[in-house]
């Protein structure tokens, strides 16, 4: 019996659930075939939930507890090659333990969907959120999405299979969920009726790339310098095609489910006439929006731009959104030691995207919230004040500033 027939999700309802549970429900509703788990905090809450759904008969899947993250990602990679819909995930150093498998999954254009419960890369030991884990695969051909709410976690999980498994794309999809702030925090979530999911999400069809005795192809032979560059170029073209696939899927999602932002790639909050626009990813959005709203009440022209897709990077939309303001302040929940300006990963990509503009805003960078440290409303106020001072005194550049850190 498939999930579609089980009846658990026949009726639309509201539930108080965590981001991890929301992704778990999406797994069942998407009728995923093979799921692999390995314990590491905080992502593994999704697997605890999935295993319970399976144990209770609400969800039919092959649920495999692997003996390492490397095997976890290898198993779904091969299941995906024979046409199975797949899901796995990890956090922090667990994601790095699987790095080899993660790299080749993208190289093979296999549409594995993974949840990254963002976590610091210990040592020293730390469970809290940092974005460096998922960001490490930014160059490899994974679609990278940062979720802000439990509702978005459910919606984007459904979207992830739809987009990854589109033959125009055939790239793996990583759904980044901030550790604790999203994985373990509950919110009211609208769980749609199964019927709607069915009309949105077609079956995974690997087509002529299916590994099966009826289609005896050889996958991933030695290509070397003779062909590797052409194959890389094909992956690059696939990544070029993803924005159109994402837009179409998002539009259909909004029509069927009745919710969504104007853009699938970015979320703009009070940016229209803003002089200073803060930029960030993930659950950071919540305190930043509160701070922006308060500052607006005080008459400060401040806005916030949330980057949802880090890959593909929405260069045009981000240019459009940021090109007219006086200053952009990027808040990185990550670090890139020794990088240009000793800045964060997001900062340097944003700065690079804005470079071709004739009239560029000033660019400032803040590193905040590492290891799960809370980014408070007053931290956001401090950042805006620093940027305002820089604008007032004509400083085009500030040293990258670490926020709320003991010196």
């Amino acid at each position, binding site marked *: 019996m498939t999930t579609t027939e089980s009846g658990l999700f026949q009726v639309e309802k509201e539930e108080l659930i965590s981001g991890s549970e929301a992704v778990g429900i999406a797994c069942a509703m998407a009728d995923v075939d093979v799921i692999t788990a390995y314990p590491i905090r905080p992502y593994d809450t999704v697997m605890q939930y999935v295993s319970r759904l399976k144990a209770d008969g609400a969800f039919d899947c092959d649920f495999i507890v692997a003996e390492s993250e490397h095997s976890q990602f290898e198993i779904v990679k091969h299941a995906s090659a024979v046409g199975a819909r797949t899901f796995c995930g990890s956090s922090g150093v667990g994601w790095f333990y699987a790095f080899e498998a993660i790299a080749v999954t993208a190289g093979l254009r296999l549409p594995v969907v993974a949840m990254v419960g963002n976590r610091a890369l210990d040592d020293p030991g730390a469970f809290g959120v940092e974005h460096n884990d998922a960001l490490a695969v930014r160059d490899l051909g994974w679609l990278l999405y940062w979720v802000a709410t439990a509702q978005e976690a459910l919606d984007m999980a459904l979207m992830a299979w739809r987009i990854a498994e589109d033959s125009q794309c055939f790239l793996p999809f990583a759904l980044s969920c901030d550790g604790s702030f999203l994985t373990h925090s509950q919110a009211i979530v609208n769980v749609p009726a199964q019927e709607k999911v069915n009309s949105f999400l077609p079956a995974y069809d690997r087509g002529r790339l299916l590994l099966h005795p009826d*289609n005896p192809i050889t996958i991933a032979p030695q290509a070397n310098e003779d062909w590797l560059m052409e194959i890389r170029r094909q992956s690059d073209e696939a990544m070029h095609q993803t924005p159109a696939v994402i837009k179409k899927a998002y539009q259909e999602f909004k029509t069927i489910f009745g919710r969504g932002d104007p853009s699938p790639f970015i979320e703009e909050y009070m940016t229209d006439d803003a002089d200073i626009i803060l930029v960030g990813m993930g659950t950071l959005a919540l305190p930043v929006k509160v701070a922006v709203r308060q500052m607006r009440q005080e008459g400060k022209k401040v806005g916030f731009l949330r980057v949802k897709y880090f890959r593909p990077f929405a260069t045009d939309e981000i240019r459009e959104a940021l090109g007219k303001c006086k200053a952009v302040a990027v808040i990185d929940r990550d670090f890139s030691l020794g990088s240009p300006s000793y800045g964060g990963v997001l900062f340097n990509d944003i700065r690079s995207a804005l470079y071709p503009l004739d009239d560029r805003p000033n660019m400032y960078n803040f590193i905040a919230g590492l290891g799960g440290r809370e980014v408070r409303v007053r931290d956001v106020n401090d950042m805006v004040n620093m940027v305002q001072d820089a604008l007032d005194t004509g400083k085009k550049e500030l040293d990258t500033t670490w926020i709320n850190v003991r010196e």
Partner: protein
Amino acid sequence: MATVHELPQIRGVKEIPLEEGYTSGHRTCQGCESALVMRLMIKAAGPRTIVVGSTGCMYVANTTYYSTPWVVPWMHTQLGSAGSAAMGTAAGIAAQMRKGKMKDEPINVIAFCGDGGGVDMGLSAISATLQHDEYNLMIICYDNESYANTDIQVSGSSPYGANSTFSPPGKVHRIMNKRWKKNTAPMLSVGHPGLRYVATACASYGLDFTNKIRRALTIGGPTFVHCIDPCPKGWDYDPKYSHELGMLAVETGLWVQYEIIDGGLVLNGTSRSIANGIRSRKPIEEYLMRQGRFAHLVPEDIKLFQDKIDESWEKWWIPGVVPMSPESDGVDDSDE
């Protein structure tokens, strides 16, 4: 559990299928015994088979882009992933068949790895896969006793003293590799009590080899086959002697041929004759001195080698297979 193919045991060489599943297009070395392993393996399995191969000679030398030798569907997997690749393939098929997303039919799943992939890096994933008796799959380790594809480096399956690019005999250290070859097949069999089939094999005995593959694919659940593959490049001998060296490995008692079926041990052919005392073991020197990788050994090294083999046949609990023994701890149990 998905059904398995009916693959009857083959009674004579003339019954071995003529159809090739591994054909021209590869560029393995002259005398490569591992290539013969691939060829016989897929002859035994037949066309309704998916093969996944981990990094090693049988990946790099076999599957060049645009000239694959594989007639069956074939996919590369990472060096340490033979176990995971087999399980992922089997699980993907099983789930889709159970849910009606794919036609329900028997499909053989084979994952191969070299000794680097099987005995060293991939051991943990193989062990995990062998615990899952709900999946029908076979893992075969083609053991040429070194990382032969990357320039002949010593592995956990290399013999004591063997010359390799990571264990070259030098002016001060004659023996650089002081490890003894892992006893992999019994380790996996003893360590996974639910495992229904484990075998050692050697392509020098083609019929025996082919039938072992068929037994591994038809018994149900995960299975493991470990074969020794003489390697002209890594062992340093004239390619025409590959078959003879495989036989010598068995005749000297260094490599023991057996199957463990549902926990029952069956010694095969020459190994069985040695165990029964019908045939005496040839001196190991005959085997070692045919190979350049042992050319630097002195008589005391060869004696050490011979002593080890003698010990395995004379002192082990199960001669040639299981090295522990039920020795008395000196406590008198007679009253219990």
